[in-house]
């Protein structure tokens, strides 16, 4: 397992907890939210937001039930356990249609590369027009990103290979809301992504060194409150929030 940012700071929380809390807070005013494949931190953020900030939030996911209330968090984010306790059915195809109609409020997406414009690459790394590394493919992102009203990007790695000036291939681009990483929170600005806040264990120098485009100064990310940490640990006793950091 690679080192989890913030783990050495002895704050009682580290990057997985702070990232979930930051994303949950950003869902305070959301109406509908979609989580896709391999989206552990977003699933936890939705559950935390529903408990603390937004009980009426409508959650849509791949197993296809509206607003599920899973009794446990499975190790796959397409697991039917994530349909448990749902109140109606809406298949993945219909969720895409919903987004295409402009009715999806917030979507969570990630990228192996994220660039200054917010474009993501999940397709492939090319060098001189030649395929160098084949990636996973962008799943639903090419549709979701430009059609959902707000896309919340997250990425459990923050380095100059992940946050780049320009993606090798743009799998998807669109309506970026925020980008959350283990070191910082970004928002869209006039010249592309700009720093909104820096996590307590990171310095501006560290963020600059790990980011492939220029960033300016920003305040410190407000730390999780004890209640946020307590509820998160209750929702996620098996620490699946650390999976994306392995």
């Amino acid at each position, binding site marked *: 397992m690679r080192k989890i940012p913030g783990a050495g700071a002895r704050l009682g929380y580290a990057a997985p907890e702070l990232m979930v809390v930051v994303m949950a807070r950003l869902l305070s005013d959301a109406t509908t939210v979609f989580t896709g494949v391999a989206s552990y931190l977003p699933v936890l953020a939705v559950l935390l937001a529903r408990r603390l900030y937004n009980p009426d939030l409508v959650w849509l996911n791949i197993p296809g039930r509206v607003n599920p209330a899973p009794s446990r968090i499975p190790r*796959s984010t397409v697991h039917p356990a994530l349909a448990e306790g749902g109140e109606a059915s809406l298949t993945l*195809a219909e969720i895409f249609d919903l987004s295409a109609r402009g009715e999806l409020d917030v979507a969570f997406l990630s990228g192996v590369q994220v660039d200054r414009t917010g474009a993501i690459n999940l397709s492939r790394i090319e060098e001189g027009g030649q395929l160098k590394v084949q990636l996973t493919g962008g799943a639903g992102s090419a*549709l979701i990103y430009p059609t959902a009203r707000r896309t919340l990007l997250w990425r459990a790695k923050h380095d100059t290979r992940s946050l780049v000036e320009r993606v090798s291939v743009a799998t998807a681009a669109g309506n970026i809301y925020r980008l959350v990483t283990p070191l910082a929170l970004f928002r869209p600005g006039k010249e592309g992504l700009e720093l909104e806040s820096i996590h307590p264990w990171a310095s501006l120098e560290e963020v600059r060194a790990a980011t492939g485009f220029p960033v300016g100064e920003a305040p410190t990310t407000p730390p999780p409150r004890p209640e946020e940490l307590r509820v998160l640990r209750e929702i996620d006793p098996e620490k699946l929030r650390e999976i994306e950091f392995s």
Partner: protein
Amino acid sequence: MAGKKLVSLDEAASLVKDGDTLALGGNLLYRIPAAFARELARQGRRGLRLVKTAGNYEIDLLSRSGSASSVVAGFVSFEAEFGLAPGFRRAVEEGRVSFEENACYTVIAGLRAAAYGVPFMPVAELAGSRVPADRGFRRVPNPYGEGEVLTVPALIPDWAVLHVQKADLRGNGVIHGPLFEDVLMARAARSVILTAEEILEEMDEGELDRALIPGFKVAAVVHLPGGGRPGACPPYYEYSPVEVAEYLYAAERGELAAYLEKVRP
């Protein structure tokens, strides 16, 4: 007629010819036709074009075995601790498999066009994405208004291969839990092959409500308990991280043939 559709795995896999297009049911490690894929690999099928929204095990296996020559999908990867599908990835990087990367939405759109009996589907614009250009998806003038509309050509599989919980002797298939794209695949494909955990003599009302795959289009049914392993087929079994690891370990050591001999069906 009743009962004639019930065949062995070997016979069902023999229906698939080299070069056929196969839509594979399920999603990632859920209700996937895993044993059917292993049998295709054992039989040495070649030149297959695989269609899936999001997949891993069968696509990785058929890429390694040399059975797949192209893959139409939105996402090919394991999740969590297993990461990328390494056999698929190498096959693409080495040019043995062509990855026709789509958005999951455009795979669905292509299948919808096929299912609706029309040559293409108009879809929402995938603004900013390389996918439409990479795939050669064309735009047409909007005949009823301003601007242009992106289209996706019909994607007509020769076979929809689905692993379902239950089927009867006439080939009617019952799916419990998430449907994923299975029903759409069954409509879009020329013909359907089912593998099923249970074969029913008759269905109760609850099963009839979930009998979404009518048997008249089903060419073969295989009674195949455990046919989704190492993936899950709720409520019968969970996915097995140990068996996924066993597959990846054997395959990465170049022991796919031994794995296919050992892991039966």
